[in-house]
C-alpha cells in the first residue's frame, strides 16, 4: 500500500484517531500521538508531520483540543494536546457514527461475498 493510499484512508478518520488517542492517554505531544497510532495499527498507519500537525491545528481551531507548551520528562520543551469538553462530545458523536457506518459496510460487504 503506497503512502498516498494510506492518506486516502485517513481522510475523515484522522480527527477520530487523534481525539480517541488524546482522550484515552491524556495530554500528549504530537510525536506521541503519531507513535501511538502507529503502534496500535501495527505500523499500518504512519502519520507524517504534514498530515498530523495541520490536523491538530484544525481540531484546536474548532475547539476540540487545547494545546500548551510544557516540559517532557527529559526537560525538553514540547507542545501538549488535551481534549476539551466539546472534544469529548464530538468524539462520542463520531464514534457512534463510525460504528454505525462500519456496521452498514460490514453488512453490505458480507452480502456481496455471499
Amino acid at each position, binding site marked *: 500500500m503506497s503512502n498516498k493510499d494510506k492518506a486516502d484512508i485517513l481522510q475523515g478518520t484522522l480527527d477520530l484517531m487523534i481525539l480517541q488517542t488524546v482522550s484515552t492517554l491524556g495530554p500528549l505531544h504530537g*510525536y506521541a500521538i503519531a507513535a501511538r497510532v502507529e503502534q496500535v495499527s501495527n505500523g499500518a498507519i504512519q502519520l507524517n508531520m504534514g498530515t498530523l*500537525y495541520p490536523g491538530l491545528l484544525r481540531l484546536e*481551531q474548532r475547539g476540540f483540543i487545547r494545546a500548551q*507548551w510544557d516540559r517532557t520528562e527529559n526537560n525538553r520543551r514540547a507542545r501538549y494536546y488535551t481534549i476539551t469538553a466539546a472534544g469529548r462530545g464530538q468524539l462520542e458523536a463520531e464514534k457512534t457514527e463510525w460504528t454505525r457506518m462500519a456496521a452498514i459496510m460490514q453488512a453490505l460487504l458480507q452480502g456481496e461475498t455471499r
Partner: protein
Amino acid sequence: MISRLREWGHRLWGTFRSGDGGIDEELRFHLEMAEQDAQRRGESAREARLRAGGTAQAAEAVRDQGSVGWLADFFRDTRHGIRLLGRSPFFTAFAIASLALGIGANTAIFSLMDAVMLRMMPVHEPGRLVQFVKSRGDITYDISCPLFHQLREELRGFDGVFAHAPMGRREVIFGDEPEAVNAELVSGSYYSVLGVPAVAGRVFDEKTDRNPSPVAVISHAFWKRRFGMDPGVVGRTFRLNRTVFTIIGVTPPEFYGVIAGAAPEITFPLTMDGEVRGGESWFPYNSRSWLSMMGRLGREQHLENARAEVDGIFSRIVQDEWRLAAGAGTREREGILSQRMRLEPAGNGLNVMRKRFSEPLRLLMGMVALVLLIACANLANLLLGRAATRRREIAVRLAMGAGGGRVIRQMLAEGLLLAAAGGVLGVLLACWAANALVTMMSNGGERLALNIQPDLRVLAFTAAVSVAACLLFSLAPAMQAARQRIQPALAEARGVERWSLGRVFIAGQVAISVLLLIGAGLFGRTLLHLHSMETGFESDGVTLFSVNADWSGLQGHELRNRVLEGLQPMPGVTAASFAMWPISHRGWEASVRVEGYTHAPDERDMAHHSFVAADYFKTMRTPVILGREFGERDTETSPKVAVVNETFMRRYFDGRSPLGKWVNVAGEPDRMEIVGVVKDIRSRSLRGEVPPTLFTPVAQREDPPAGTYILRGKVNAAIIATALQRIDAKLRIVDPRTLDEHLSRSILSERMLGTLAGFFGALALLLVCAGVYGVMAFQVARRLKEIGIRMALGARPVQVTGMVLAETALPVAAGIGAGIAGALALTHLAEKILFGVKPTDPATFAGACILLATLALIAAYLPSRMAARVNPVETLRCE
C-alpha cells in the same frame, strides 16, 4: 456548525497575525523524537526522517490551515507591493500624483453632473413628478394663475398638482436690519404633493390657499444660518414690503426646493403674491404667465395616459380662448391655436442649469476621461519599464514554481495600491475642485445652491474609475511579465523590438492629447472670437446696479428720475442711464406694424422691444447713425417716439432713412415716430443674427418697469451707495457689478469650457512629455551597451542622437495621425458651443499637432543627449 465557524474565525485571525506559534520548534522536536525512537529500534535516523516527511512542507501545510489562503496571498502581495513602491519614491509619487489628478478631475466633473443632471430630489417618490410645459411654437411660457386653477380643478389622473414662482432676492426685516433672502411663492399643495414634511412647526397645506394669511416657511439652511436652529423660530415675525409675516415652519435639511441651483430660503403662500411683490396681485390675470406647474402622477397612472388627459383638457381651453379672441388678427388667432401643454418627467427637479450646463459638462466629462486614459498609459509604460528591470526577479520566481497567475496577481496588487492611493487623494482633490467649479459656474453672482457633497453614486463612480484605471495600466505589464520565458530572461534579453508595447502606448497617448489639444484650441478660439466681436457698445468703465426702494416713499418715474438726477453730477461719472434689460436679448418679442411695409402672410412680424431711459446710447457708447437718441424732452405727455437698430432699418426700410416714419407695436395704443437709428448691439450670448430691435423711452410708459441703472465713469459700489443715501436715506444699492462681469455671465459655459479645456490640454501635454521622456530614457539606459558598441564602431554622437529621435518620431507621428482622425470624427459634437470657428479648423489642428510634436521631440532630446554622451570604453567594461 459552530465549530466550523470557530475554525474560520481562527483562520481569518491567523491571516492577519504574524508569527506561527512555534510550529518550527514543534516539528524539530517531532523529528528528534522520531530519530531517537528509530535508534532505539535499531533503524537509521534517515529512514525515520523520511517517514516523518519534510519539515518545510509540513510547516507550509500548517500555515495554510492557520490562515485563509488567497487572503493571505493578497496581504503578502500588498506588503510586498508597499515595500517595492517604497523603494522607488519618485516613481510612486509621480504615479500617485498623476492618478490623483486624473481620478480627481473625473470625480469632480462627475459630481457636478450628478448634482446638475442625475440627482433625484429628496422628496417622496420623485419618479412620479412631472412638469407642465406650455409652449407656443418653439418658445416655452410660464402658466397664468387662472389656467393653473382650471387645470387643478379638471385633472383626474394626478395625486395632486402645485404651482410655484421664484421671486429672486427679496429684502426682509427681522427686527431692524434688512437682509436679502431667496424667496419663492408656492401654492398650498406644494409641500403635500412633494411629500416634504416640516422638521419644526408645520408647512402649508390646501387650507393655506383658501384663507390667505401672511405666513411663511423657512428652509433648514436659513434656519441654521440665521437662527442657529433655534426651535423658538416658529411664531417669529418679519416684515416684507409693508406686510408682517409669521414663520410657521421649517423644511428638512435635504430639501433644496424644486429648482436646482436656486434654493429658496423663505417660501410664501401663492395667495400672498401681491404682498411679496409689493404691488397688486397677479391672481386674476389670464394674460400674466408667471407660474411653473408640477404634478404627481397617480400611482397606477402612466405618463402617456396623463399626457392624453392634459392634451384633452388643454385643447378645450385653447379652443375657448380662440373663440374669445374673435376680434384679433388671423396671425394672433393662429398663435393661440399653436399652444401646447407638454408633460415632462421632473424627478430631478426643474433644472434651469441642466439646459445650460449639461452640454458643457458632458464634453468636460469626455475630456477628463481622456486625461485619465493618458495618465494610465503613462503608468502602464512606467510599469513596463519597471517590469523589465525586474525581469530577473520575476524569472527567478517563475523558476521557483510560482504560477503565471500568481505573478499577475502580485503585479495587480501593486497597481491596485497605486490606484487606491490615487483614488483617495482624487476624492479629496475632487471635493476642492467641484467647489471651485461651482464658484466658477456661479460666476461672481450669488452662489449656486448645488449639492455637491459626494454621495454614494459619486464614491461608487470613483471606486469604479480607480479599479478600471488599475486594470488599464497594470494588466498589460503584468501579462507581459508573466509571459516571459524563464531562459532568455535569465540570460538577459537583447534586441529591441521596433514596436514595443511602450511605443504603442506613446502613440496612444499622443493621439489622445492631440484630440484634447484640438478641443482646447477650438474652445479657446471661440472665447477669443466672443471677446473680440463687434458688439456695438463699449463695456469698459460701465457699472450696473439695481436699487431697492421698498422702504422709501419713492417709486416709478419719480424714483428713476431722482436717482438719475442724483447720480449724474457725481465726480467721475460721464453718463448715466437706465434700461429694463441692459445689453441682453432678454426682452419682449412684439408683433410690429411699420409704415410703408406690408408683411407677407407667412412672414415673421416679430421685433425685439426694449425699454431704455434718456442717454442710454450715450452711456453705452453705441453710435447713433441717424437722428437722435432719447432725451429729457421725451416724457409721458410728449409725442411717442422710438429708436430702431440698423437691422430694423435694413429689414423694413431697405436701408433708407426711417426717420419720421411710424411704427406700431401690438398691444400698445399709440403709434410711435421713429426718431433715430443706432448701430446693432450684439451681446456675446447671441450667436445668430441680431434681431430687428425697437427701443422706446421708459419715460413714456404708463407702468414704469423695474430695471437696471447704468453708470459710465470711475465709481464703485460704496460711492454709489452714499450717493443714493443722499437722495433718500432708505434707498439701497442691489447687485452692483461692472458691465464686463455682467456680460461674462452670459458666456459662462463657453468660458468654463475654454478655461477647463485649456487646463486639461496642458495637463495632457505635461503627462505625454513625461511619458515620452520616461520611455526614451529607459530605452537608452537599457541599450547603453549597444550604443557603446555602435560608437566604438565609429558612430558619431549626432548619429546616435538622431537614432533616438527617429525612434521617438515614429510613434509620435502615428499618434498624431490617429489623433487627427479622432478629432475629425469627434469635434462636431461641440459644434453648438463653438463660435466663429469650424469644428475642423485647419489652423487649430495644425497648431495642436506642431505644439505636441515639438514638445515630444524636446522630451526625447534629453535622453538622446544622454545616449550621445555614452563613453564606449566604460559601457563595454561594465559587463
